[in-house]
């Protein structure tokens, strides 16, 4: 929102005490964020009041004129002008030779063969309005030769305030509210507004509110005999500076009021107004708004109706037939207050956010409507002394918003502030902001003005906020929390996640990735995978929440295949399973197709390593009964810890893999991280070791049509007191090398002990139908 400091000054007593250029840094700290401060009026100089003394058509042009302009010098000067409103006697803005506009120097130069000494200017040329219909028409009483900056408020400081930081402050959507804040910040006095008091000795207007939950108040007034509909120059400049277009006095005045008090208003041509009714639209009706767009209405949209016809969308935009016309002399003024949420919904659903709706959706104070009308009438009368009030100030206000009281105890205030303030300081701050304060022994009895009560001031903490910010947040000093050595409840999820991530990145050179919680639905389609899970409403694609983290990582896998033939990635993320959140660790190993065996075995080792190193747990693998069609149904293992399933290893099917990249292998590991987190870490206990040395013996066994799984069963049944441990150390084609570690607690093993062991072992292998290399 743009704020004019000239306007603010008009609402404040002794405004010259305030440094208007630098107050805004403080305003940012006290009230709302200021985005930009612009100084206006420096873009031109040497522009004075000039009077056209002579006006003859230009011989070489169909629209230009040759003027003799009196600008206060001894003789009038010759100026060529192309504007169509030139005439003898007109006083206008004349820029002298040597003057500047936007850094450009004005020189005497011929225009179509006739010398022009300087130039007569339009409002747009001077950058003080967007009027370019002709040169400026100054009032007759302006003195020729005077700098126009002496007459017009051209010099101004325009401040842009971040709208978002005003979301919660309906009272700050107009200059008067901002002026009140400035008064509180600088300890100045806010001036009351000049208004026109209206005697209610005429007829009431016919106004009905059908739904007082959606329309809190509707105030109307009819004014006749408006002859002057021309906006004074200073009002044009103000509107231009704050970003509004000047149209006509009546329209401009409603905008001035909106910029002043934050209250949107409407002026209807009184000739078309029969009776006003505020009520809901009929579902499906079509209505054309002021901007000429046809809008489809729904039954929850609040409308202003005139007779039986729609007259405007309440709080959003009027219609075509209610517009002020050039010959309008009688108006019906509307000043109303609507339900904020209803206006916001209507504006959102219509895709039509207007200056009015933006203000209404902030929850405006209904007690402002009559003030706004009286203020507008006052300003209108200044331009139309003969205007006639033609009706009572008709005010439909079914449920009056009353001022509320809040008790603020001094103890709470001191705790929040970390200090105790003087009663008078508290009282002064709040009163400057419009509150009324009674000081009691232990508390303050505070009356909240209704312009603050509609939205942000409800409880004592809200008052503390007011006091703290005006007191000055920069006066607070960082203070450490008190020492507290209580042992707190502890949650280890974050740490455990970090531990695993770090291990995977450090030991296995893996890369951590982050992906989305929903499936890439295009990818699912491409891979021919159907998924049914919780969906996001109102979205057509990427709308299915993932239930398989590894699968959801496949588009990341595809992207990386473009640059790498093999890589390892992982994520710890959330999946939605059976309607609830689950944390999962997913690891994906990729390589050329021919290396599937390597990465498959690596996957098992990674899993074993994680559990051994971080949980001191042994992992077992069992065959996976895979129901998911996109994973290979013969390869794949369940991961078990303490006999409970905690995850699985899978191989993506060839058909899916080929869609991601040709001749590749993709192995996935998924570990239920919720279970992982709750898994206790096995205590490490030291083991007694024999004082006699141990011996290692290697045997190579040949498996034909059998798997290591079968060999394991055979090895399990071979028993000997000498066995300390045995393990698979190498696989070459169908040859499996097993290494036994033998030892005794009572003696050093001798050759004959080893020979006996060897003979027994070879016999055992052979008896079980396997071959062994002797």
């Amino acid at each position: 929102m743009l704020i004019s400091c000239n306007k603010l000054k008009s609402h404040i007593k002794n405004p010259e005490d305030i440094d208007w250029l630098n107050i805004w840094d403080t305003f940012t700290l006290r009230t709302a964020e200021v985005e930009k401060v612009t100084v206006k009026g420096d873009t031109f100089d040497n522009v004075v009041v000039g009077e056209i003394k002579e006006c003859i058509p230009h011989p070489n042009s169909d629209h230009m004129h040759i003027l003799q302009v009196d600008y206060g010098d001894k003789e009038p000067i010759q100026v060529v002008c192309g504007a169509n409103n030139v005439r003898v006697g007109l006083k206008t803005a004349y820029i002298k030779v040597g003057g500047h506009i936007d850094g450009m120097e004005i020189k005497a130069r011929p225009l179509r063969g006739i010398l022009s000494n300087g130039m007569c200017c339009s409002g747009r040329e001077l950058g003080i309005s967007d009027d370019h219909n002709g040169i400026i028409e100054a009032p007759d009483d302006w003195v020729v030769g005077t700098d126009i900056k002496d007459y017009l408020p051209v010099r101004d400081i325009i401040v842009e305030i971040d709208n978002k930081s005003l979301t919660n402050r309906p009272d700050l959507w107009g200059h008067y509210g901002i002026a009140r804040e400035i008064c509180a910040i600088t300890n100045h006095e806010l001036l009351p507004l000049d208004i026109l008091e209206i005697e209610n000795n005429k007829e009431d207007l016919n106004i009905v509110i059908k739904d007082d939950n959606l329309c809190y108040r509707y105030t109307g007034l009819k004014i006749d005999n408006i002859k002057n509909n021309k906006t004074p120059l200073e009002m044009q400049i103000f509107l231009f500076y704050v970003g509004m277009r000047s149209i006509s006095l009546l329209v401009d005045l409603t905008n001035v009021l909106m910029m002043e008090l934050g209250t949107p208003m409407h002026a209807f041509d009184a000739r078309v107004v029969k009776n006003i009714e505020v009520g809901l639209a009929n579902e499906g009706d079509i209505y054309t708004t002021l901007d000429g767009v046809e809008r489809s209405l729904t039954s929850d949209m609040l409308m202003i109706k005139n007779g039986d016809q729609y007259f405007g969308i309440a709080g959003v935009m009027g219609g075509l037939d209610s517009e002020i016309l050039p010959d309008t002399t009688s108006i019906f003024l509307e000043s109303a207050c609507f339900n904020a949420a209803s206006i916001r919904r209507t504006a959102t659903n219509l895709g039509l956010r207007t200056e009015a709706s933006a203000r209404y959706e902030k929850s405006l104070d209904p007690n402002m409507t009559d003030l706004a009308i009286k203020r507008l009438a006052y300003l209108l009368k200044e331009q139309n002394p003969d205007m006639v009030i033609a009706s009572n100030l008709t005010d439909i206000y079914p449920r009056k918003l009353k001022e509320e009281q809040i008790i603020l105890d001094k103890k709470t205030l001191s705790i929040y502030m970390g200090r105790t303030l003087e009663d008078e300081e508290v009282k002064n701050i709040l009163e400057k902001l419009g509150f009324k304060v009674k000081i009691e022994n232990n508390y303050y009895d505070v009356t909240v003005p209704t312009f603050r009560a509609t939205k942000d001031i409800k409880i004592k903490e809200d008052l503390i906020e007011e006091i703290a910010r005006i007191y000055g947040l920069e006066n607070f000093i960082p203070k450490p929390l008190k020492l507290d050595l209580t042992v707190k409840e502890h949650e280890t999820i974050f740490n455990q996640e970090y531990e695993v991530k770090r291990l995977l990145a450090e030991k296995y050179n893996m890369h951590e990735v982050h992906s989305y919680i929903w499936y890439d639905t295009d990818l699912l389609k491409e891979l021919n995978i159907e998924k049914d899970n919780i969906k996001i409403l109102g979205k057509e694609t990427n709308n299915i929440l993932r239930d398989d983290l590894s699968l959801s990582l496949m588009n990341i896998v595809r992207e990386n295949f473009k640059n790498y033939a093999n890589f390892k990635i992982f994520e710890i993320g959330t999946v939605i399973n059976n309607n609830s959140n689950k944390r999962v660790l997913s690891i994906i190993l990729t390589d050329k197709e021919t290396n599937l065996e390597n990465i498959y075995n690596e996957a098992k080792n990674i899993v074993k390593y994680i559990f051994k190193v971080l949980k001191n747990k042994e992992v077992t693998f069992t065959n996976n009964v895979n129901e998911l069609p996109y994973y290979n149904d013969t390869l794949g293992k369940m991961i078990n810890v303490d006999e409970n399933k905690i995850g699985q290893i899978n191989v993506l099917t060839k058909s899916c893999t080929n869609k991601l990249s040709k001749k590749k292998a993709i192995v996935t590991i998924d570990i239920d991280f919720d279970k992982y987190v709750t898994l206790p870490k096995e205590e490490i206990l030291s083991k007694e070791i024999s004082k006699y040395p141990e011996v290692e013996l290697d045997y190579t066994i040949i498996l034909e049509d059998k798997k290591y799984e079968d060999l394991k069963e055979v090895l399990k049944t071979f028993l000997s007191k000498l066995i300390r441990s045995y393990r698979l150390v190498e696989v070459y084609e169908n040859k499996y090398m097993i290494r036994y570690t033998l030892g005794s607690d009572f003696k050093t093993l001798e050759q004959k002990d080893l020979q006996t062991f060897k003979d027994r072992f070879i016999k055992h292998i052979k008896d079980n139908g396997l071959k062994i290399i002797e």
Partner: protein
Amino acid sequence: MEEKLSKLKEELKEKLATATKEADILNIKSEYVGKKSEISSILSSLKDMSIEDKKKYGSLINNTKKEMEDLVTARLEELENESEITFDDTVDFELVTGSLHPVTIIAHEITDILKRMGFTVVSGPEMESEYYNFEALNVPKDHPARDMQDTYFLDNGMVLRTQTSDNQIHAMENFGAPLRICAPGRVFRNEDLDANHENTFYQIEGMVIDKGVTIENLLYVMQNLLKEVFHEDVKVRLRPGFFPFTEPSYEMDMSCLICGGKGCPTCKNSGWIEMVGSGMVHPNVLRAGGINPEEYTGFAFGFGLTRLAMMKYKINDIRVLNSGNIRYLKEFNLK
């Protein structure tokens, strides 16, 4: 005899000096000091000698044998130490490392600092009920934040959480007062993607509840947190803000690190960068967490971890963070 022995010794010396392989030396060893060597037979002939000769030559023979054995051992050791391994010591392979996600690194760093201030790290669900995401946080039904366009609503009546503040309620319910928690986590907003906007990003939430907690404690925690993160003497300032779950609410700005507070395009010439949403916990939120606001006060804060990671690592396109592109992410080595 003496002559004979010294000759044997000299012979051995000569042979050892020319031998350069371990096997040769072992052969020489068996030839000169082995069982069938001359000195061994001389030694064994000692028993047939006269007592006089035994006395005369016994120790000499033994000593000579010992000396010869030592010569062999010394030469063997010499050879072992001579055999240096040589290789191309200028070979230089490219370093291969894994990587952690930048957000993981920054989350770890921040939680680490907060843990030093006594905070417990907690986590909450990404799919959240409207109660925890809105109601309990004092966001009433008709609040703009609950509009369809900001929030991902789900067909089971839940939402993808829009901020990590749901952790405030979970933590109060789980631990009660007094309380000191922080909660990094992922949040979701229905936004179109561009270089600065993501629909999925990370925040961290912090909450402290105790008797007599003040705005000044909040200021301390934030100032020191940012100081530690950026390893610079950053300044912070509070401005009035508005959040439904805090009252009073504050925007916290950090002095711009690019220009040092003088004003530059990054900070829009203000010298300050908006970093943290914060405030004193709203009494309604305390009540929702089962804590009596007449007895306890608290503060809460939240800020974008993703944004912080981008600032710290100078990442200029937010989209790379969820791209999984290893070429980009591999730079973020372990921390």
